[in-house]
Structure formats: C-alpha cells, structure tokens
C-alpha cells in the first residue's frame, strides 16, 4: 500500500548540510499499523512528511496505492493526498470557526461533494465515534479527546488508503489516549487501511504490528508491536 525506497532528505548546503533522513526503506501493507519511534530530531516527522507527499525527498521513491508520488507535480499532489491519505495531527488542527461536523466534512467538500451529502457522511462518522451530541460544537467547546475524534473522523471520511498520525495521543490523558489507540486499531484492522504513526508514547506500541526506530535519520531497529493488547479483532490478516 505504501512503499518507501531508499529515502534520503538533505537540508541546507555546504557546511550547514543536515541529512534528516538517510536511506530509509519501509513497506506498510493494507491493514498494517506501523509506529515510528525515535528521539526528537531523529527524522521521524521528516520521514512521515515525505511519505505523505508534503515534502519531496532528495533521493528515493514513495509509492502510495501504486502511484510514485515523488514524480508528481505540486499541482497533482493535493488531489492524491485528498483521495488516498488521511492525516491526524498532535494538536488536532481543527478549523476554529467551523463546527465539528463541518470540520469532519472538509475533505469531502474539497473533493467536490455537495454540502448536504458531505455533512450527512461526516455526521455518520462522528456518531460512530460517539460524538452525535457534539456535532454542532466549535473546537473550543470540545475536550481534547473530542477534538482528536473529530480529527480522526476528518482523516477517515474520504475513505483514504493510508492514514498518517503524528503523536495522536500526546495531548490526551491516559483514558482518552487509550480510546484513540483503539480507534486507530480499528482503522487498520477493521477498515484495512495502512496506518503510520509517529510517536514518543510507549503506550502506542500496544496498537502497532511493527515498531520502527529511527535515530539520526537512519532506521536503526525494527521490532514487532504488541498489537493484541489493544486490538479486540483477533482474526484479521494483512491483505
């Protein structure tokens, strides 16, 4: 589903050159949840930005749903992101003047769906995430956990093939964080999407099939996750 081959990203030139990502290759299959861990400045965010088509690598290729996105132009990339990818951010990043249902509907509206249809679909998603009573609330009226669930609805509403989550539990307490992890688990296992999570949070390993460790831009270690601790779906397989 998503394949990174020999990704290298170099910032700056001459004496100030920084090799943020150094020859990293990674495959994430449909239904698989991969967590990328590493210290601050190790290159995790740069790697996920490149995988999500938000940044061009200096070298290497990224293939998402069969398309090499590194060869796509800046004009083509937004459409690819809109139709094949979903993003969940650490600080939720909801649009402050839009209600919960409007925030979740944004990808559908950007893709050209009618407002009524888009809102109906976003409300269905929010209802599934137990937010039926908060549909018309503005982000400032929502708790952190509620905001993150709206952000997850926004990431999934367009039925993307790949979901990228950046520190999805960082701003949440333990209980809410656990809920979010279960949600991400169902995104991978039940919905068969590839999920790439960047996190410092050790608890997030409980949702992962694989954990990748990055240091100084290099993939230094890979270990199996403890997926079964959170995931209630025992009988699933990667496609």
């Amino acid at each position, binding site marked *: 589903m998503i394949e990174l081959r020999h990704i290298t990203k170099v910032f700056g030139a001459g004496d100030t050159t920084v090799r943020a990502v150094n020859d990293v290759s990674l495959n994430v299959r449909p239904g698989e949840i991969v967590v990328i861990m590493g210290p601050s400045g190790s290159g995790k*965010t740069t790697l996920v930005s490149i995988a*999500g088509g938000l940044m061009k690598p200096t070298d290497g290729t990224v293939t998402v749903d069969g398309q090499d996105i590194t060869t796509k132009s800046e004009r083509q990339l937004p459409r690819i992101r809109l139709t094949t990818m979903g*993003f969940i951010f650490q600080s939720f990043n909801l649009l*402050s003047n839009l209600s919960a249902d409007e925030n979740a509907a944004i*990808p559908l509206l950007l893709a050209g769906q009618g407002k009524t249809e888009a809102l109906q679909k976003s409300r269905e998603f929010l209802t599934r995430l137990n937010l039926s009573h908060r549909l018309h609330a503005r982000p400032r009226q929502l708790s952190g956990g509620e905001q993150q669930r709206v952000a997850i609805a926004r990431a999934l509403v367009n039925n993307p093939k790949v979901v990228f989550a950046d520190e999805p539990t960082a701003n949440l307490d333990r209980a809410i964080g656990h809920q979010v992890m279960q949600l991400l688990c169902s995104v991978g296992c039940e919905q068969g999407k590839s999920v790439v999570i960047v996190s410092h949070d050790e608890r997030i390993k409980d949702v992962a099939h694989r954990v990748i460790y990055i240091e100084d831009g290099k993939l230094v270690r890979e270990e199996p996750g403890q997926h079964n601790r959170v995931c209630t779906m025992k009988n699933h397989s990667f496609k």
Partner: protein
Amino acid sequence: MPTLLIAIRNLFGERGRFIITVTGVTFSVVLIIVLQALYQGWTAKMGQYIEAQDADLWVAQAGSRDMSHSISLLPSSAKQTITDLSSVASVTPFIGKRVGLEIKGKDRIIYLVRYDPTATVGGPVKLIEGRANLSAGEVIIDRVFANNTGFKLGDTITVGNESFTIIGLASGGDLVAMSFAFISPADADRLFQLPNLTSYFLISVSPGADREQVAQAITTAVPNSIVYTKEEFIEINGQFIREAFLPIILVLVLIGVATGIAVIGLTIFTSTIEKAREYGVLKAIGATGGQLNRVVAIQSLTSGLIGYAIGVIVSFLLGIIVGRFVPEFVVRFRLFDFAWIFALAIVMALSAALIPTRRIASINPADVFKA
C-alpha cells in the same frame, strides 16, 4: 463549496475584525460616492439657473465665457436687430452684475440681476419663502446665501450706499462661489450704471425652427457677439467646476481607494497570518492553492460588497440629512456613478486579496506536523 463555507465562517467568526474591515470600506465608499455626487451636484448647480430659464439661446459678448468669471456687455439696441430676424419668437434682455459685499466681516459676492416681475424669464428659479413682486428698495436672495450669511426675510442688505430689504428667498440660484440676487429694474438701472447695455439676450426660437441656424443668423446680425444654445451655456458654466475640482476629486478618490485597499488588505492579511496553521492544515489535507486563494478572495469580496452596500445607504442618508442643514451640500446621485464605484469596490477588494494569497502560497503544509 468549502471555500465559501470557510471564508464566510472566518469572516463572521471574527466580528471585531469584520466590523473594522466593513467600516473602513464603508468610509472609503462614502468618501468616493459623496465626492462624486457633490461634483455632479455642483456641476449641475452651475447650470441650474440657465436650465430653468425658458430660453433656447443665450447671446453674449464675443470672448465671454461663463457667468461667474467673465463679463458680457452688448448694446441694448441689438434687441431689435434680433427680434427682426425670422424664427425668433421672443428676445429678453438679461442684465446682471457681480457685486462684492462685506457681510459680518466677510467678503461675499452676489450676482445682482435686474428683475422685472412681469417678465416670464430672467427671474428666480423658485421662490421658497416671501414674495416675488419686487418694488424699489427690495431684494430676493438665494437660500444658500441666506444660510451662509444668516440673513432672513425683513433683514437689510447694503450694496454700495444703498440698502435693500429682503422680501423673498429663492432656490436654484447658487453658483458655488456666488449666488443670484434680484432687484427691481429701477434699482438696477440706477445701481449698475450701464445705460443702453445689457449682459445677455435670452432668445426663444419659433416652434419648428432650427436653433443652430437662428444662432448663426444672430451671430451675423449682431457684431461682436457669440450665441450659445442652452445646453452649450450650461456646459460652459459647469466647466469651472470640472476644471477646478476634478483634479482634487480624482486625488481624493484615489485616497479613498487606497484607504479601502489598505483596510481590507491589512485585516485580511492579519487574519491570514493568524490562520496560517489552518491554511497549512487545509493544504496538507489536499486543498489546492486555487481553493485557498478563493477563501481569501471571498472574504475580501464579501467585506468589499457589504462595505459598498452600507456605503451607498450612508451616502444617501448624508445627502438627505446634511443637505437639509447645509444648502450648498448639493449632491446628485447617478446610476452610472454607483456602477463604476461598485466595479471599483470589486477591484479594491480583489487587489487587497493579492498580498494574503501570496502569504498562503508560501505556507509549507509539512509545518503542520510541528506541534
């Protein structure tokens, strides 16, 4: 239409900023509309008196131009010469003189007109207070002059060594820099000291006659004369306003436009900077540059159009209310002016959106991953 949804929510979500933007645009639109309406009003005012006179042609001394800045003197005997021409229905001499006065320490100018109450032309446009049947020692003044000087019916005006009692207030006789006042023929003949001379002849041509041909015949018959059609004479009298005020009005209109662009531009730009992260999120999700530019353009256009609509209403109200208390505040609203000012408001709003759109283009969507 996510762009419309986001733009409108952003705009109305920040009411303080929105009110500031619309107020700024309203101010600039009012400035432009009122200036243009005043310009049109004053230009029309310069020709209002001529327009109201029942005369097809005005015969003046060759070389004279408008009534405010040049003197026209023709021999009274020319009346008969013109009357004898075919296709001339009536000839009325119009005798007037600009007179300087000192009223309450201020210098004023009036255009004293010899007015025969029995004549059908050459009198006040409209009497709004008092009476029109003048006798010796009486004067009818314009209401703008009355308002500026504080004169009212029954007061006395001194011209030279003579005093005149105000018996009527008229409208339609203000020429911005001066206004018409009317005195009896006996007073005028004594005061003007212009025996056998007249300022203008007001001509009515016979029904069906060609005015141009009559004008040509008069020019030939009366040496040292020039003949204007009513429209030409109105145009010439309005030229003073055009030449004197148009450059000033253009500068002020440019200031109005610059103010509008600055207000919309600054508020939308500030809003864009504050919402840079949200625009980054939208970019990351998959919004195109065009969609984000539309968000800014819609915000800018909405502010511009609402400001324009309020500006039109405020301008109308100003025209009505201020006009009541300040008679020289004569405004003339034209549909054409509203149309070009509307187009200007759109250009203003779109120009103001340019800088914020450049800011949006520079937002890196990958930055949204930074906490």
